[in-house]
């Protein structure tokens, strides 16, 4: 299975910060409240939590991607 990564849509993100609470192993907040995301592949143990974080983002800004990040 291709490695999944967490990614944020920075246009949609308004800094709610829910993701950092639900996935603290991979996401912290910068000094302005926006997510700093570890772009390493999501460990299998965290995949459920990652999906929950994606689902619960109020702005639907968080994504799980199996493609290589890249803008």
């Amino acid at each position, binding site marked *: 299975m291709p490695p999944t990564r967490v990614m944020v849509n920075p246009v949609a993100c*308004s*800094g*709610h910060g829910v993701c950092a*609470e*639900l996935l603290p192993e991979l996401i912290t907040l910068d*000094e*302005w*409240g926006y997510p700093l995301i570890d772009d390493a592949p999501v460990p299998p143990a965290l995949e459920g939590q990652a999906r929950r974080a994606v*689902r619960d983002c109020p702005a*639907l800004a968080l994504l799980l991607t199996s493609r290589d990040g890249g803008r």
Partner: protein
Amino acid sequence: MDGITSSTALWFASRATGIVALVLLTVVLVLGIAVNRHGRLPGLPRFAVTSLHRAVSLLAVAFVAVHVITAIADPFVAIGIAATVVPFVSHYQPFWLGLGAVSIDLMIALTVTSLLRGRIGRRTWRAVHWLAYVSWPVAFAHSIGSGPDLWRGGLLDLAIACAVAVAGAVIWRVVGTRRETPLSQRAARVLAGWPGSGPGHRRDGPPGPRPRDAGRLRAGRLHDDRLHDDQLRDDQFRDGDLRPKAGAR
């Protein structure tokens, strides 16, 4: 159990679950606005607001379902299954129940899109979710119109409280949105707030203390590039020596 007693039980159940559903839907709407406004419930983490909004909405759906099923099952009033989702076709109180049907249709749209929000894309989900602002008033009108329980006493107070809560939350939403800095001004506002790195500048302007002296870069003068150049140069510099003139920062 004779028909009248079971009918009464079902009728009571329908009315009771309807009232609870109205209260829950009120809570859902207020929580939804709280999420949008980045509101926090005291002592609870951020995800609590959004999780509660989701949980209570599902609970509300459950209560609405029971409310509808008991109403249909009750043999005393002639409400067919169709009337629950097709507006204005019931024989009993067609108008007020019709509003209930409209409200349910909207709720189905909201629920389905929200359960599938990861798949349908952000824009579609948002567009449908606006219907929440239609769904609540319609449900409220249905409640008042078809529920004489709510016209007196404690339940009247409850209905009024729900209306006030929604009105307050909507005002919060509208005022908050109007105070939001438009995209084109966000960088300018942060610049005008310099110095003062403070905690996050989010949508409603930089929180934290107003900076002592933002005179040089005050918002009204941001468009005048020339003035800024002067301030960088003439105000600050004197013959290669950078001692500030009196009064400059």
